[in-house]
C-alpha cells in the first residue's frame, strides 16, 4: 500500500479500508528491507505510532525525514561522525508543521555528510545505493530520501537542496523532487550548509503529492527571518493542468547536440527524450523557444557555487568542535581536542570543501573569490529574471543521462565537456527560484529526469507545468523496478 499516492492513501484511510497502524507497520517493514539493499537510513523509528486520521491529507500517513533536519528526541546526525550521537531537544519547524498535520515519521534518511556532496557516498553510515540498480549512485545529497521514495517505503520524504540535492537524486531515482522558492519553508532546525542557498523541500512520486506536502511544511516562521508569508498560496488546490499559452524556454548552450562533439549514445537518447517531452507540452498549447546565454557566463556556474557554498559552509560549521555537543576529541589542550574531533569526524570531501572556504574567506582573497562569485551570481540571476519577464519557466534535461555506476564516480569538480548539464540546477539556488524535477523517460532500464524552473514566488505555475507534462507521460507514481519504456 505504501507505494500508493497520498491522495489514494488518504481516501483509503478515510473510508476505513486501511488503518494508519497498518500503513506504518508496512513502512517500517519495508524500511528494513530497503536498508539491507540500499543502506538508505540512519535511523528506523521502530516505535512510530499511528495517529488519528483527520481531513488533513497527510494524517496517518508515514514519511521519511532527511537526517539533517532536527527531530526532537530522535538521533539527528547530518550523516556525520561529528554528530553521530546527537539527539536534538527540538523539532525543525518543517517537521513540527508535518506533525501538526498528522504525518508520521518512520525513519531518518542518510545523506552526503551535511548535504555537502552529490554522490551519496560520504554518509558516516556508508554508501547509499540506487534501488533501480544497486551498483549505481542515487546522486545526493538527499540520497536516502530518494532511494526510499523510489523503493515505495512511503509516498514522500523530506529533502534539502543547496545546489541540486533534491532535484538530481529525483532524476536518478525516477521520482519527483520539488525545491520551492527560497524562504517558503522555514529553515529553522535544518542543519545549515550554505544559508543563502539552502532550501527545504520534498521528494515524492507525483507532482500533486509534492504540492500537498509543501502546503503542510510551509509557513512564515519568526525563528527564520528569511521565511515569508505564503498562507494565501494554496499549491495543491491551484493545480489544474491548464497550460495553454504558457511560454517556456530552454538554453541552447546546454541542450544543443553541437555542444558535445564526442556525444555518447546515452546523452543523445537523453536529449531526444527531452525534445519529445517538449513536443508533449507543445501539443497542449505551450510555446517553447530556444534561448542563447553567454557560454562564458554559464561556465562559471560551478566555481561560483563552490566559492559561495564553501565559504558559507566553513563559517556555518565552525561550531562543530565536539566541546558543547558531539563526541569529544582526544588531546592535551582545547585546540588539540577540537582539531582531533574535526579531523577524525569529517569525511575527506568536506574537509577539502572547508579548506577551500577558509582560503576564500581570508581577508586578502575575499574580493577576488567570494565577492566576485557573488557578483557573478547576480549576473546569472539578473539574466534569468530578464528571461522570466518574457517566459513562464525554464525547462532543461537533468544531468547527462542516467545515474552513474558507483565505481565510476569522481567527486572532484566536474570536467568541462558536460559540466553545464551536470551543474545548471545550481541556477535555481542562486536566484531562490522554485524548481521541480520529474521523470520523463528510461534509458537501458534506468530513469532520467527533466527540470522546470520558474521565477521566485511563481511556484504554482511551475507545479502546474510539471503536472501538465506528467499527465502526458507514463512515469507518474513509478517505483524502482517498475520499468516503463
Amino acid at each position, binding site marked *: 500500500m505504501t507505494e500508493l499516492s497520498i491522495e489514494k492513501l488518504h481516501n483509503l484511510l478515510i473510508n476505513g479500508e486501511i488503518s494508519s497502524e497498518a500503513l506504518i507497520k508496512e513502512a517500517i517493514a519495508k524500511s528494513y528491507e530497503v536498508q539491507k539493499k540500499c543502506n538508505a537510513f540512519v535511523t528506523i523509528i521502530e516505535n512510530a505510532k499511528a495517529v488519528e486520521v483527520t481531513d488533513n491529507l497527510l494524517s496517518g500517513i508515514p514519511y521519511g525525514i532527511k537526517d539533517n533536519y532536527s527531530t526532537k528526541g530522535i538521533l539527528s546526525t547530518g550523516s556525520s561522525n561529528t554528530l553521530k550521537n546527537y539527539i536534538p531537544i527540538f523539532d525543525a519547524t518543517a517537521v513540527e508543521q508535518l506533525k501538526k498535520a498528522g504525518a508520521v515519521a518512520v525513519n531518518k534518511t542518510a545523506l552526503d555528510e551535511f548535504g555537502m556532496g552529490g554522490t551519496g557516498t560520504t554518509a558516516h553510515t556508508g554508501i547509499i545505493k540506487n534501488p533501480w540498480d544497486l551498483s549505481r549512485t542515487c546522486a545526493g545529497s538527499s540520497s536516502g530520501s530518494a532511494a526510499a521514495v523510489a523503493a515505495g517505503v512511503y509516498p514522500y520524504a523530506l529533502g534539502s537542496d543547496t545546489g541540486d540535492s533534491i532535484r538530481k537524486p529525483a532524476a536518478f531515482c525516477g521520482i519527483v523532487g520539488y525545491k520551492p522558492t527560497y524562504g517558503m519553508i522555514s529553515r529553522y532546525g535544518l542543519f545549515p550548509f550554505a544559508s543563502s542557498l539552502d532550501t527545504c523541500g520534498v521528494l515524492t512520486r507525483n507532482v500533486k503529492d509534492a504540492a500537498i506536502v509543501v502546503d503542510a511544511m510551509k509557513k512564515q516562521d519568526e525563528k527564520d527571518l528569511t521565511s515569508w508569508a505564503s498562507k494565501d498560496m494554496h499549491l495543491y488546490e491551484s493545480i489544474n493542468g491548464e497550460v495553454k499559452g504558457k511560454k517556456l524556454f530552454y538554453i541552447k548552450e546546454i541542450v544543443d547536440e553541437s555542444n558535445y562533439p564526442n556525444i555518447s549514445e546515452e546523452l543523445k537518447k537523453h536529449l531526444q527524450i527531452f525534445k519529445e517531452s517538449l513536443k508533449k507540452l507543445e501539443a497542449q498549447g505551450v510555446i517553447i523557444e530556444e534561448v542563447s546565454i553567454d557560454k562564458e557566463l554559464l561556465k*562559471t556556474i560551478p566555481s561560483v557555487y563552490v566559492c559561495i557554498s564553501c565559504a558559507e559552509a566553513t563559517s556555518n560549521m565552525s561550531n562543530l568542535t565536539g566541546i558543547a555537543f558531539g563526541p569529544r576529541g582526544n588531546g592535551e589542550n582545547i*585546540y588539540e581536542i577540537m582539531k582531533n574531533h574535526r*579531523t577524525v569526524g569529517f569525511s575527506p570531501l568536506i574537509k577539502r570543501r*572547508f579548506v577551500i572556504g577558509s582560503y576564500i574567506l581570508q581577508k586578502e582573497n575575499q574580493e577576488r*573569490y567570494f565577492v566576485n562569485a557573488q557578483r557573478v551570481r547576480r549576473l546569472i540571476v539578473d539574466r534569468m529574471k530578464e528571461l522570466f519577464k518574457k517566459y513562464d519557466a525554464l525547462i532543461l534535461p537533468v544531468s547527462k543521462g542516467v545515474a552513474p555506476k558507483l565505481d565510476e564516480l569522481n567527486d572532484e569538480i566536474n570536467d568541462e565537456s558536460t559540466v553545464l548539464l551536470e551543474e545548471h540546477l545550481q541556477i535555481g539556488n542562486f536566484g531562490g527560484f522554485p524548481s521541480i524535477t520529474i521523470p520523463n523517460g528510461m534509458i537501458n532500464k534506468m530513469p532520467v529526469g527533466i527540470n522546470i524552473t520558474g521565477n521566485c514566488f511563481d511556484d504554482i505555475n511551475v507545479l502546474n507545468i510539471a503536472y501538465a507534462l506528467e499527465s502526458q507521460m507514463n512515469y507518474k507514481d513509478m517505483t524502482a523496478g517498475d520499468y516503463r519504456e
Partner: protein
Amino acid sequence: MNNFTREMVDEYANKLLIGLTEEENKLVLKEFNIIDANMQLIEKFPDIKKIEPMTHALDSYEYELKEETGEVESIEIEDLLKNCGCYEEREIKVPRVIN
C-alpha cells in the same frame, strides 16, 4: 594565477583546526587551480567590479525588527548538556586554557 603550495593548503586547513592527509592535500591543490582558472575568467567580465554582490537569494527581502516582548525563550542547561561529551554538574569540562 596564484601559485598554490602544499604548505599553503596545510596552513588554511590548520586555521580551521582540520588535519589533511597527503592525498587530501593533493586534491585540494588541484581544485584550487580549477577555481582559480575560473576566477580569472570572471575577472575579465566587463565592469565586474561595478556589480553589486548578491548576498541573498531574494531581492525583495525586507528586514523587520522584532517587537520587544520581554519574553525570551530559553533552554534548560540540563537539556543542553545532554549532548555534551564531558561535563561536571552544570558546566562543560575542558582542559585548563590559562596556565
